[in-house]
């Protein structure tokens, strides 16, 4: 058995699968480049005492000469499957039951003013399945009858207006992918490491294709004073009637829109069905759900979540007010905290990058705690103010490794380190923590959330 490779999921080699010359070739190829893991794997075989445990994770050929999952045809290959429309609305496989949005115990005192975190460690690509989209409610969520929902526009407009969903859905629409991140995402990590997994460190983050009508279109319909009306109040129809001040300059750019669609269907109730504001690049609290009213004004509104919460306390005791932007940030989602690598060998390090100012230009990944970096591959599409997926090849040698990612956006801004961020903002800011995240892969394979100095 000494000719086994210890890299995970590699089929056990039959005896003499490489002759002496072949082995020599592998070794010489391995001296340079990506395949060096084969060499180290060969070397490890001779010395490591933990080998049996490691091998237990592989996919060796059983003594019977074949995998029973191959040799014995399963029921699903030998019988009739289920018919169409068994589920009028399809659900994930029963084997995906672990993939849930979850609360962080002790974070909030009530469930109605609370948060659930998206399971980023289990997601692929850039789109968050609507049922796993993170939740943030301020006074509980509702499933509102769309035939009774109204949107009002008033304030500095020629005529205050009322729109029904019927009318809004007649207007020219746009569909755009955008990330939404809570301003308090990663808040618990400002001072030190606090939570175990990427779901809880970064899971107040989601990305969807939203469909709706640019707010500027509605403002023009009402004859809004776009010159003197510098600030727009957006207000929800739920108990909290959430209000937030939206910059007119962003609305005039055409980016802000009133959405009814999410990932090809209507918004989910937890996301503001039937109408929510989309404010690309801005923290989630401004994306007013159950949107009922838009008011055009010439001054900011100092709403509760602009004058009590969602303000950033600076070291000198001043609060920064109206801090809305989500600056460039990234995180490795696998391998990530609380996961266990099954074995040494090849892995695809993957993660998400985003910027509230535009597109992600590049993402670098380090496996040695930030000493050396390699540039990751970006998956397409790379869209403005949307999540971008990155990947990087990695061969784990079984030794401790600290994995980090560092994003740069198309303004040239580079995601900061914790030291840089704390140097300016201190450690009591709560909001807008976009520092580089570190994951320590331990020799046991278990990954730990850490911060490095």
């Amino acid at each position: 058995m000494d000719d086994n490779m210890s890299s995970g999921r590699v089929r056990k080699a039959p005896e003499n699968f490489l002759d002496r010359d072949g082995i020599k070739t592998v070794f010489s190829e391995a001296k340079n480049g990506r395949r060096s893991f084969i060499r180290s794997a060969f070397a490890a075989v001779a010395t490591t005492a933990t080998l049996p445990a490691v091998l237990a994770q592989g996919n060796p050929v059983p003594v019977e000469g074949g995998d029973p999952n191959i040799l014995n045809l399963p029921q699903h290959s030998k019988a009739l499957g289920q018919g169409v429309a068994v589920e009028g609305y399809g659900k994930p496989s029963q084997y995906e039951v672990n993939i849930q949005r979850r609360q962080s115990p002790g974070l909030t005192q009530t469930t109605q003013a609370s948060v659930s975190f998206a399971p980023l460690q289990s997601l692929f690509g850039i789109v968050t399945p609507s049922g796993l989209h993170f939740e943030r409610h301020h006074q509980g969520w509702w499933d509102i009858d769309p035939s009774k929902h109204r949107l009002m526009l008033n304030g500095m407009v020629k005529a205050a207006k009322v729109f029904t969903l019927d009318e809004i859905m007649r207007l020219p629409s746009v569909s755009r992918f955008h990330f939404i991140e809570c301003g308090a995402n990663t808040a618990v990590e400002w001072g030190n490491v606090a939570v175990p997994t990427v779901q809880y460190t970064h899971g107040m983050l989601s990305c969807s294709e939203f469909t709706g009508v640019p707010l500027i279109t509605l403002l023009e319909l009402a004859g809004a004073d776009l010159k003197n009306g510098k600030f727009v109040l957006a207000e929800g129809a739920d108990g909290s009637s959430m209000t937030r001040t939206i910059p007119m300059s962003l609305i005039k750019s055409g980016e802000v829109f009133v959405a009814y669609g999410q990932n090809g269907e209507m918004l989910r109730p937890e996301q503001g069905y039937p109408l929510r504001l989309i404010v690309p690049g801005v923290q989630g609290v401004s994306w007013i759900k159950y949107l009922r009213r838009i008011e055009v004004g010439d001054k900011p509104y100092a709403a509760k979540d602009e004058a009590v919460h969602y303000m950033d306390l600076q070291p000198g005791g001043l609060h920064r007010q109206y801090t809305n932007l989500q600056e460039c940030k990234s995180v490795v989602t696998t391998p990530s905290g609380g996961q266990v690598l099954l074995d040494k060998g090849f892995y695809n390090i993957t993660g998400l990058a985003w910027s509230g100012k535009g597109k992600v230009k590049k993402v670098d990944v380090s496996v040695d705690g930030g000493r050396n970096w390699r540039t990751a591959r970006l998956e397409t599409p790379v869209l403005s103010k949307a999540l971008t997926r990155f990947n990087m090849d990695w061969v784990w040698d079984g030794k401790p490794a600290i994995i980090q990612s560092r994003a740069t956006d198309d303004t040239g801004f580079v995601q900061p380190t914790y030291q840089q961020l704390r140097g300016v903002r201190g450690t009591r800011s709560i909001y807008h923590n976009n520092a580089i995240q570190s994951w320590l892969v331990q020799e046991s394979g278990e990954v730990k959330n850490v911060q490095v100095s």
Partner: protein
Amino acid sequence: MFKFPKALVVIALIAAAGLASAQSAIKMPGVGRDATPKEVAAWDIDVRPDFKGLPVGSGSVAKGQDVWENKCAHCHGFFGESGEVFSPLVGGTSADDIKTGRVAKLTDNSFPGRTTLMKVPTVSTLWDYINRAMPWTEPKSLTTEEVYSVTAFLLNLGGIVPDNFVMSDKNIAEVQARMPNRNGMTTAHAMWPGNEFNGVSKPDTRNVACMRDCVTEPKVASFLPDYARNAHGNLAEQNRGFGAQRGADTSRPEGKPGATAPMVNAVVVAQVSPSAPTAPAAVASGDNKAAAVLAQKNNCMVCHGIDKKIVGPGFNDIAKKHAGKTDYLAGKIKSGGSGVWGPIPMPAQTLSDADAKTIAVWLASGAGK
């Protein structure tokens, strides 16, 4: 636009149809209508820092205390100090802060909390929020006088207005001039995505994308504490049972490589068996679920946790203390009361007798999941 005859014709048509905005009709006729003044009044409730939108009216600290004790104290505490349901509202401000408009405790890292009165710069914010969102389970139910009163009472708790104060739309600007953190805000930052505040454009940090030998040997400065490893539940159950990684089985101490995988699969199988036989226990569990849903729906869980005290006792503790006493519990749910578990009263509840009974049966039989 009146230069163009075509536009004039369109405007004439719109006027006939009862629409006012020429712009809208030209671009997208037939979509939207003018809001009536009555409709705007019903929804346009926001109050700005310059008091635009503030209704005429007044309310006294004394009246505010009554409102507070009936409608606010069970979540916020009698003195706005409670942190059980929401963060404390009052505390941490001083007479000196009222003079300077800056809260000194905000620079004191040893001071544990940041109360609402320590942070809020604008009295309009309090008025607006109380009016639109309070009380917690009955938002928008307070009268204008009640909002003035309860705002005045809250400010009185913080020593900002005297005991005999009557706050009104006439003197609210004087109250604003006493807000402890009124000078504690800045918009000189690069975090507002627009030019409306004339903020700064330069970001706080300037990292560079160094690629080689960037830092000396990195050291782990902060490590997930041992107690936090399993604090969010077993991480093996929060990851797929297959793929490049597993979740760590945090119900057990950290192990050697390979120690976790079989267990994780077992977890998945155990959780998904959809065709499990319906045992008596499962039937009971269905009733438990229905009762828990009712408790949620009737806002019981605002004050009672399933297995923890919030304002009132946890359901598990009630179940222990009053096991088997269905009628007593149903009666208590309907009538409310105080003194059994503590001084904070539970208000009488308005749910139906049948629903109260369902919840009481559930409690009397152990409040199971």
